[in-house]
């Protein structure tokens, strides 16, 4: 009987935990931030995760294909691509907040920015929870997206390496360059990415400013949830290898 590699399962679980932990670093502002009434990028976790996670996946996937399955290259490219996407997102949003909405970038959760040591509370408009993405949230977002991108790349790598062994999965659809196993691994990596990032965003109640936010202390609960959710999701995904001993 064909069995899946236990190491790959561990990678998927580790990847899931990294994705969940990464979300805690990302400045998610939600709907209030879209009206520049809260700190963070003005959209929900699902959209931010889709933006940076999918960019990370594209980076990881292209690195995997061009390096012939090099582990370190795939993982680092996943992290860097996601971090790049979140910094572009936060930067462009900041330009709009400052020059469009006319609000200073400030955090309402801390009196002094932990990185720049600049005063924050004076610049928070009355009745709001801060505006835009100030320095520490920005740096926190880059760290978080890197972690989540690395996590997503780990999941993708484990799945792609597992499925590459199934006979018949090296075929391609028509003139497409990507073989079957790449498509399946990418689709499942997106699924497992969403599972973990939504669980993490439930843990933070939808909004967080970054590592300096008090909500950041809820991280252990999210790690447990991510562990279980990605263990089950990863097991289901890897069981496909067991179920297709003769390929397709």
């Amino acid at each position: 009987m064909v069995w899946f590699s236990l190491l790959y399962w561990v990678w998927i679980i580790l990847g899931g935990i990294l994705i969940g932990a990464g979300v805690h670093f990302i400045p998610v502002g939600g709907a209030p931030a879209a009206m520049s009434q809260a700190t963070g990028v003005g959209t929900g976790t699902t959209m931010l995760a889709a933006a940076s996670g999918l960019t990370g996946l594209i980076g990881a996937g292209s690195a995997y294909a061009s390096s012939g399955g090099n582990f370190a290259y795939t993982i680092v490219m996943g992290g860097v691509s996601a971090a790049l996407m979140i910094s572009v997102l936060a930067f462009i949003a900041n330009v709009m907040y400052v020059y469009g909405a006319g609000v200073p970038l400030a955090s309402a959760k801390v009196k002094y920015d932990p990185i720049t040591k600049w005063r924050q509370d004076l610049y928070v408009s009355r009745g709001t929870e801060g505006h835009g993405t100030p320095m520490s949230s920005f740096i926190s977002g880059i760290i978080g997206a890197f972690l989540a991108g690395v996590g997503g790349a780990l999941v993708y790598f484990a799945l792609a390496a597992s499925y590459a062994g199934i006979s018949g999965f090296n075929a391609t659809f028509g003139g497409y360059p990507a073989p079957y196993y790449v498509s399946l691994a990418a689709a499942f990596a997106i699924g497992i990415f969403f599972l973990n990032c939504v669980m993490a965003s439930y843990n933070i109640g939808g909004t967080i400013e970054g590592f300096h936010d008090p909500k950041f202390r809820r991280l252990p609960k999210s790690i447990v949830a991510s562990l279980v959710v990605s263990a089950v999701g990863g097991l289901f995904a890897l069981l496909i290898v067991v179920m297709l001993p003769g390929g397709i």
Partner: protein
Amino acid sequence: MAEGERSPRQLLVIGVVGGLVGIYLANYLNSMTNTAWFSFFAALGAVLAVFWGADAVRRVASYGLGTGVPSIGMLSLGAGQVAVLLGLAVAMNLKVHWAAPIIALILAAIIGIVNGVMARRVIKMNIAIMEMSMTEIAMAASLIILGFSTAIAGGFAFDLIMKYVVASGFIIAVFIVGGMAMLHPFNACLGPDERQKRTLNLALSTGFIAMLVAGIAAGAINGIQAAVPTMIIAIFGWIIYYLRFFADTKEDAAAVLSTGLLPKEEEVA
């Protein structure tokens, strides 16, 4: 539950039975006649699953998830997608081709329960119906993915779905469009005046839009036979239910009470 509403159990039966019957009809009629004319049945089944899933989203999201309605839809589609492919692979392994949709549904329920338990017991979200709703939404999501995939590929054998839906990349379109069809209705209608009939009419309308996308994809795989019936039904369904939703909106909007004009400056002072 207000008068004239459909109960959760009624919708569960509509979703599960409708979804499964549609998928089976499409698969067996296509293979019996050796054509792809009947693919649209599977897409209709998926639309019924959207109908059920949208109500489950509506029930759980009305508690306020804190992260926006889309989150629960995307989570469940992620779970449903893994469950569907594993279900098809299990059926292929055990040589019970006919049972594939049912196995996928059961696997989706398992993964949904795990998600629900994690959300309620570990993350401690204060939503009493979390486990049940997550299970229902994951099951609906698996039927949506399998329904649209069957409509595109013309059958639900693992190798067909793998080749024509996953390898061709349509799985991502099914994932996002199917998810949007399920989560958009409540996301658009939520608020104190939300009413099940209006939300579900919008759900059918978005379901038919998703069916239209599936029809276009089916055309790329199985040609006119699959595309034309699916797309014609989708367009008519969309127009009918969008007009019903529009009528419901106007009806409900008339019940909004006027608060009067803003007081004049001198009156305030």
